[in-house]
């Protein structure tokens, strides 16, 4: 079985790198990190993701636009709000949605 592909969007590059690294520590998950809306849309349209993780700094307008575009392209996509910015909550947030 392939890895769970996760798109991480976060305006803060340092936190983005940390979150991507932490996700990739799990051998069953693979994360791709992007900062901008354009990168997010282009990457999402190019690769099959199961889950999108919304990190810090994303404006409400961008969040609404991105989520709508993701749902049109892939109605089954799971979109998760990530809180905390580090290792504390990340795994539980992903486990929770994958268990649904």
């Amino acid at each position, binding site marked *: 079985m392939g890895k769970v592909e996760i798109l991480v969007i976060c305006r803060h590059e340092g936190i983005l790198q940390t979150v991507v690294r932490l996700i990739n520590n799990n051998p069953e998950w693979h994360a791709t990190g992007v900062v901008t809306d354009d990168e997010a849309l282009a990457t999402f349209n190019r690769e099959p993701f199961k889950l999108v993780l919304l990190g*810090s700094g994303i404006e409400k307008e961008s969040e609404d636009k991105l989520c709508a575009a993701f749902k049109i392209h892939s109605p089954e996509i799971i979109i998760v709000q*990530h*809180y905390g*910015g*580090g*290792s*504390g909550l990340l*795994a*539980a947030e992903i486990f929770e949605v994958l*268990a649904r």
Partner: protein
Amino acid sequence: MAQTILHKAETRGHASHGWLNSYHSFSFSSYYNPDRMNFGALRVLNDDTVDAGMGFGTHPHDNMEIISIPLEGDLEHKDSMNNVAVIKNGDIQAMSAGTGIYHSEYNKDRAHRVKFLQIWVYPDKKNVEPRYDQITLNLEDRHNKLQQILSPNPDDEGVWIHRNAWFHLGKFDKCVSAEYNLKAKGNGVYVFLLSGDVKINEQLLNTRDGFGIWDTDKFTITAETDAEFLLMEVPMKF
């Protein structure tokens, strides 16, 4: 009618990293229990012990209200907003991680360990400007009474956070009792017993037990022995 949940101390998650011994009341890091995700907006309650001379290296946070309450020893805090401070027993620190912050926490003491509570509350708005606050509390103000240490209001007692939450500490002699009246409709209270035995209404709690109570506007806390405890009132829906 009030609803309640009891988390006995020994049912908490536990992680030992050599230098760090941590008990998790709710899922955290490698401890995942789908039945222990949060109590309303209260997401993390970690009961940490850090060895002498050790600590948490620089690491990031975002979008979380993070409260630290030292119980024993001194912890040095440094962050990306150029704050450098030592928090010690009697202090409380609140940090709004907002759009993102880096910080480190070290026990600079080469001889003594540090014990502290690390508490995370979901913020009521995302992407706020990061901020840091720390105050020293008067320990006498919690002797046989409830001392407010946190609220949503910058002008109120204690530190403040971006959430409709109130925290109180109490250090009660045996047989002392107090009524707690919830501040906001829809809130619940998570009681964490630091030492001794107390009763919340009729429920007995022992050291390090956690107890959540909601769908009520008040409850009574009675010290069965000399006891210290933390009350965390948070919204149940957020």
